[in-house]
C-alpha cells in the first residue's frame, strides 16, 4: 500500500515555510512579534512532514467555508 500522506488529507490545509524577508514583512504589516502568532508544535505531524523547525513561521492557506480561501500563520515552537 502506498504510504499515506497527511498533507493530502482533506482536513489538512496547505502549508508553506516562510522565508526570512517574508517573516519580516509579516511582522511589519501586523505590528507583532513572531511569538504573538498562534503556535504549532515541532512534534506536530505536519511539522515533521515538511521539516519545520522551532523559529519558523508557517503560512497556512485554508479552504474556508465563508471566504473560499483564507490565510493564517503559525509559529513553530519546540515541544
Amino acid at each position, binding site marked *: *500500500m502506498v504510504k*499515506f500522506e*497527511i498533507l*493530502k*488529507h*482533506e*482536513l*489538512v*490545509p496547505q*502549508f508553506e515555510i516562510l522565508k526570512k524577508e517574508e517573516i519580516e514583512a509579516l511582522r511589519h504589516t*501586523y505590528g*507583532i512579534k513572531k511569538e*504573538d*502568532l*498562534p*503556535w*504549532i*508544535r515541532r512534534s*506536530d*505531524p*505536519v*511539522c515533521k512532514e515538511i521539516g519545520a523547525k522551532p523559529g519558523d513561521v508557517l503560512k*497556512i492557506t*485554508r479552504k474556508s*467555508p*465563508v*471566504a*473560499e*480561501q*483564507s490565510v*493564517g*500563520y*503559525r509559529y513553530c*515552537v519546540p*515541544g
Partner: protein
Amino acid sequence: MAEENEKDTLAGKATAKAAKAKKSSPKKGYARKATKAEAHAEAPAKASKAKPKKAKAEGLKATPIETRAAYLKKLLVNYKGMLPDNLLTQLEAKLSGATMEEAQVKKIVDETYKAYTKALIEPGEAAGTVAAQSVGEPGTQMTLRTFHYAGVRELNVTLGLPRLIEIVDARRIPSTPTMTVFLDDDHKGSLEKAKEVVTRIERIAVENVAKSIEYDMVNASFIVEVDEEIAQDKQLDAEFIAKSIVKLKIGKVEIEGNGIIITPEVTAQDKIKRLRERILTLRLKGIKSIKRVLIQKENEEYILHTDGSNLSEVLKIKGIDPNRVYTNNVSEIAEVLGIEAARAAIIKEAFQVLDQQGLDVDMRHVILIADLMTSTGRIRQIGRHGVSGEKSSVLARAAFEVTVKHLLDAAAHGEEDALEGVTENVIVGQPIPLGTGIVELFMRFSNQKEAE
C-alpha cells in the same frame, strides 16, 4: 472570553476580523447604496442584477462582452488579497454578464471594496464576547430540546448540548466515538467490495463468535463453543480461532468439532476468572476499539460508519480512501493529522451540532472558538483547565471559578495584577480596555523639550 481573545489570538482575531467583514458587508453595502441610488437595491455583489436595468434605462452604450470580461478580470486581479476570494468570484460571476460601461463596473468593484473595509472589525471590538454570547444564547435553547438523538441508522451519536460541551471541553475521548470511512475507487461501487473492507475494519473478538464459554472443573479446562453461522459470516473458522488463542500462551489448546478446549496451566480460582476475560476479549480480526461497522449508500457510493474510532489504524487499511477518513474524536485528529486538521474538525463538529439543532449561529463565531482552542499548538479546553484557567490576571481567574483558591494562591506567591484585561478593570471599577477604552496615550517628554 474577551481578554483571552485580545492577548492570545492575534491571528485568530485577524481571521475573525476578515470573517466578520464578509458577513456584514452585504448589509452595510445595502444600506449605503440604498441612500445613494434606489437602483442599487441589493447587496454589492448582487448589485449587478439591479444595475443593468439602470444602465438600459439611461440608454448607455454597452461595450462588447469580451472586452468587458477581460477588463473585469484585470480589475479584479488588483483586488486579489484585498477582497476575500468568495467576493471576487461573486463579483466576477455577477458582473461579467452585466450590460454596462467600464467606469460603472469599476465603480461597483470600488464600492464593494469600500463596503468591505468598512465592515471589517474595528480595533477594540469585543469579538470574543460576541462569539461567546452568540454560541451561548442558542445553547440555552438546546437544553430544552433533546439530549440524545436516536439516528435513522442504528448508530447512536451524542448530539446537542452534551456534544457541544464535549467539544469545548476538549475531551480526550468523546462519549460516542464514530468514524466515517470513504472507500477508494475500486471499492466504493459495489456492496460486495464494501463488505470486504468491513471485515478488515470491524473488530471481532472470541466473544462475538462464541456460542458459549464454560469452565470444566473436572478437567480444569475451558470449552469454547464456536457459533458456526456467525463465524462463517465473519470468514473465520475454529482452526483460526484456536491458533489465535494459542498466541495468548495460557496453556494447551485443542479443537474438538465445533468446540475449542483450552487447558490453562494455572488453576487458581481468581486467575481462572481473569483468563476467561482474556479469552473472551481476544481480538481475532479487525481494528481495536471499532465495535461495529455499518454500510450506507450515499450518492452512488458506499460509505462506512463505525461505532468506535481508531484513526491511525484505519488509515492503514487497504481499500479505503485515506484522504477522506473522518472521526469525531478531535484529539485523535490532532495526534495523527496535526493541529490545523484539529482546528478544522472542531469547526466542523461544533457547527454541525448547532446546525442540526436548527440554530442559525454564524460560522465565524465557531471559527474564533476553534482558533482560540488551538492557539498554543495543542488542543486546549475553554474551561478551567484551559483558556479561562490560564489567564495571566489573578482577578480574572478568581472571577471565573473557585474564587478563594485563586486569591489565596496569588497572595501566597505575591502575584501582581497589571490590570490589563476587561474583567480586572470591571472589578476595580476602572474604564475597561474595549472599544475606545483600548487606546492609551503617552507623552514624549524629549520632543517637548526640543520644542521649547
